[in-house]
């Protein structure tokens, strides 16, 4: 056996961790039925890899090596326990143990089982998010706590409670049957979209783990599309990619927000945009329509050359799926670009009069922008000040202050 250099082995284990952690945990959960045991055994297997691969060389199939090692570790751990329950699990484990690998389809489906179980609607939403990160991406409890800005014991409790609910309420470890799939898939997509948005909203000042949530969401989105290429799953992945392509241009040198019309389009990531565009167009669905809107922006040379009438039409379709006032506000902005600020302002004033968006700072901020474009500086300033009072973050206030100063 060749002696591997420490650097090579560390790189190989790190790479295997990124690609195989979820697979190892997913398989171990199926084989043992015990989520904590699966996580602990997977962690053991990766620690063992560091030592063994140095001595014996990096295996040809690291994933299979890690799964087998984790299984052996699980068997050892169960043998050390002495309760009746543990013996039953041991019997189940050993019945499937040995050298013969599981069917490739079964292994393939393990990660999908894990995704759907982590995102089961009977779990609290925060628990779904945490469990998805812990079991599928391998982030530690401490890292997840940092990413969501909560104390580590709080995150630990969230994870423990979610696993306890899965165990005690007997949430099945399976891909839901076809008649349940649409509802369950939308629960999965909601978790991925939240992860993406948490990371996307995190600015340069935020910790790296928080910023990386977007990358984790895209990674999980790619995995989901690979395993289950449903139109809305592809739509969400496209949406995330098309937004992520603009990430570098969204924040200025001093950490200030840069809106779409002021972003340097030459710095948009064309490879990511191309990947997003390849996933479209598909059947209409809320994520696919939002992705189609993002695609209109991604391919436009400038704000002026953007296909605003098409964006308005896409918002009309989106309102059928998501009849929310925020979507109506965004549609009003697109109408203002397609038909002039007065047409947009009429819609925004209608929304303001209905009172459904009372307290939402983007409503007066949008009114202010339209009034400014119409040359009505006085009323624009009034609306900017109203938005300033409602804004929740320093970045938003700094942005509004700058617009006010420009008047």
């Amino acid at each position: 056996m060749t002696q591997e250099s420490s650097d090579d082995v560390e790189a190989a284990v790190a790479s295997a961790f990124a690609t195989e952690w979820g697979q190892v945990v997913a398989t171990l959960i199926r084989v043992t039925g015990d989520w904590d045991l699966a996580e602990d055994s997977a962690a053991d297997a990766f620690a063992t890899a560091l030592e063994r691969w140095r001595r014996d060389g990096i295996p040809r199939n690291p994933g299979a090596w890690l799964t087998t090692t984790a299984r052996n570790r699980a068997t050892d751990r169960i043998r050390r326990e002495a309760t009746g329950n543990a013996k039953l699990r041991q019997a189940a484990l050993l019945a499937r143990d040995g050298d013969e690998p599981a069917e490739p389809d079964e292994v393939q489906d393990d990660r999908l089982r894990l995704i759907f179980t982590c995102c089961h609607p009977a779990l609290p939403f925060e628990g779904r998010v945490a469990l998805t990160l812990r079991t599928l991406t391998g982030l530690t409890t401490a890292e997840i706590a940092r990413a969501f800005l909560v104390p580590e014991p709080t995150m630990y409790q969230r994870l423990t409670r979610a696993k306890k609910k899965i165990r005690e309420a007997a949430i099945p470890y399976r891909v839901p049957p076809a008649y349940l799939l649409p509802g369950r898939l939308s629960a999965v997509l909601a978790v991925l979209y939240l992860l993406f948005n948490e990371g996307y909203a995190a600015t340069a000042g935020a910790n790296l783990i928080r910023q990386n949530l977007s990358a984790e969401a895209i990674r999980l989105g790619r995995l989901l599309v690979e395993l289950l290429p449903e139109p809305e799953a592809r739509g969400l992945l496209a949406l995330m990619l098309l937004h992520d392509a603009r990430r570098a241009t969204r924040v200025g040198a001093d950490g200030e927000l840069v809106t779409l019309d002021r972003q340097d389009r030459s710095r948009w990531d064309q490879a990511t945009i191309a990947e997003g565009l390849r996933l479209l167009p598909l059947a209409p669905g809320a994520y696919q329509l939002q992705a189609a809107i993002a695609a209109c922006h991604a391919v436009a040379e400038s704000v002026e050359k953007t296909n605003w009438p098409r964006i308005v039409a896409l918002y009309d379709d989106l309102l059928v799926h998501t009849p929310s006032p925020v979507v109506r506000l965004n549609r009003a902005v697109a109408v203002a670009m397609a038909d002039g600020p007065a047409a947009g302002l009429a819609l925004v004033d209608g929304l303001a009069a209905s009172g459904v968006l009372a307290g939402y700072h983007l409503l007066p901020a949008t009114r202010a922008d339209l009034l400014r474009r119409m040359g009505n500086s006085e009323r624009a300033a009034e609306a900017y000040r109203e938005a300033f009072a409602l804004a929740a973050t320093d970045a938003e206030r700094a942005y509004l202050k700058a617009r006010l100063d420009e008047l």
Partner: protein
Amino acid sequence: MKYALVIWHGEEHAESPQEIDAWPEHKAWMDDLVARGIFQGGARLRAMTTTKVQVRGGETLVSDGPYAETKDLIGGFLMVECAHLDEAIEVAAGHPFAAFGTVEVRPVWE
């Protein structure tokens, strides 16, 4: 896996168990549960005449209630034997009261 299904409904539902049994959708639902070996028993409860009993320091304290703060009342319960939570959810969603009240799915501690 055993689950208790706890049925909550508003005060306006004062139907007797005989009346509920006569509902075609309730009968179809129950016949299916019995045929599949899922139904393990249960009862319609008189929701508005509950008595609370506590023993404190050797003394038996008796009072009217408890009733929830909301307008909903516990109107009955069922015991069901299901393969897993998804099956229990499907059974709960089929209870006619799920369409206007709430059905809680509570795992039995065995």
